[in-house]
């Protein structure tokens, strides 16, 4: 079992005020309370840094740190996992009007995976576009629980999953250290790398949970 926060932003994103080390420190606060958090996936806005290496910090705090991105598209924000240099060549991460459907295809082509973020969010979530008649044949998983969304927005995401059969992930969408891991995804698999994360998403063996639900889990 692996508990990962699949959506958070460090100071590399312009609207975040938390460093990666502050997130890892704060996870120790959660652990002291008995919660299980194995790792985080940094999903910076509109960017990806291949060079930055968090392995030393990860070892120091005993927290897995993976990297992804949250990209703006014409169909709302999308979380991208297992970004490769080849994918980054094909996709302009700074294009805030990029075609979300094309992004999903490009990511899959390069071994990555795309999960629409906060789909129930009013005005900008995937639900809004679906209500306008847009169809997303390649979407199979959405972010069902976003700890930064309003309760009614998460309810819309849950309704979407029930209506379509989409599977759901969870993430904190943290922009502050104390918000890290408020919601996490519980995976059956043991995950240590971005490709393993994609495999685990494709397997479908995961569920979204709030941090309180991790308390009874065995501590790794």
């Amino acid at each position, binding site marked *: 079992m692996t508990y990962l926060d699949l959506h958070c932003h460090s100071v590399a994103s312009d*609207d975040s*005020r*938390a460093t990666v080390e*502050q997130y890892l*420190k*704060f996870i*120790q*606060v959660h652990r*002291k309370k008995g919660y299980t958090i194995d790792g985080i996936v940094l999903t910076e806005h509109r960017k990806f840094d291949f060079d930055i290496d968090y392995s030393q910090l990860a070892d120091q705090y005993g927290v897995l740190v993976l990297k992804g991105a949250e990209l703006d598209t014409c169909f709302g924000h999308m979380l991208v996992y297992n970004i490769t240099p080849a994918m980054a060549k094909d996709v302009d991460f700074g294009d805030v009007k990029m075609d979300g459907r094309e992004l999903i295809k490009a990511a899959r082509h390069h071994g990555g995976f795309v999960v629409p973020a906060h789909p129930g969010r009013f005005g900008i979530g995937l639900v809004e576009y679906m209500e306008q008649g847009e169809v997303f044949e390649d979407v199979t998983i959405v972010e069902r629980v976003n700890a*930064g*969304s*309003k*309760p009614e927005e998460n309810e819309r995401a849950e309704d979407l999953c029930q209506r379509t059969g989409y599977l759901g992930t969870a993430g904190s969408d943290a*922009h*502050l*250290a*104390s*918000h890290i891991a408020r919601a996490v995804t519980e995976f059956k698999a043991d995950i240590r790398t971005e490709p393993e994360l994609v495999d685990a998403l494709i397997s479908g063996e995961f569920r979204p949970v709030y941090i309180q639900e991790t308390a009874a889990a065995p501590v790794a």
Partner: protein
Amino acid sequence: MSQATKLYFEDVELGDEIGPAIISVALDQVVDFCSLWGNPAPNRFTDQAEAEKIGLDGPIVPGIMTMALVSRVVTDWAGAGTVADLDLVFRGTVPHNQPLHVGIQVSDTEQDDDGNHVQCDITMTGPVPDRPYVIGTARLNLPSRD
């Protein structure tokens, strides 16, 4: 002249939660603030019609007034003169005459040659748990008991 200190570095632990402090901003306070600030009423902060002209539902609390209010909540807890930096991100407009819940949580502590530093996460929300109007951080310099 030395100032009495309310809080020492040793009193603070990572993860400590303070508040929320509940404040509310009345129109006359905003009018007074705007007058002192040099932006006299009527304007989008004080007047319904002016606010609607720029697409707002109603007059809002000025950003710098919100910063001042948050700063006061922090110093009420930590003591005057402790705030070295206040960095807020406005995610929504701050309304008048509504309970504003200002929460503080200690998100980092560090001691170095320059002193004893505490970072606090700040959130300002309405009364219902919701997306915050404001998030940010305050960096404090606290004295040590040693």
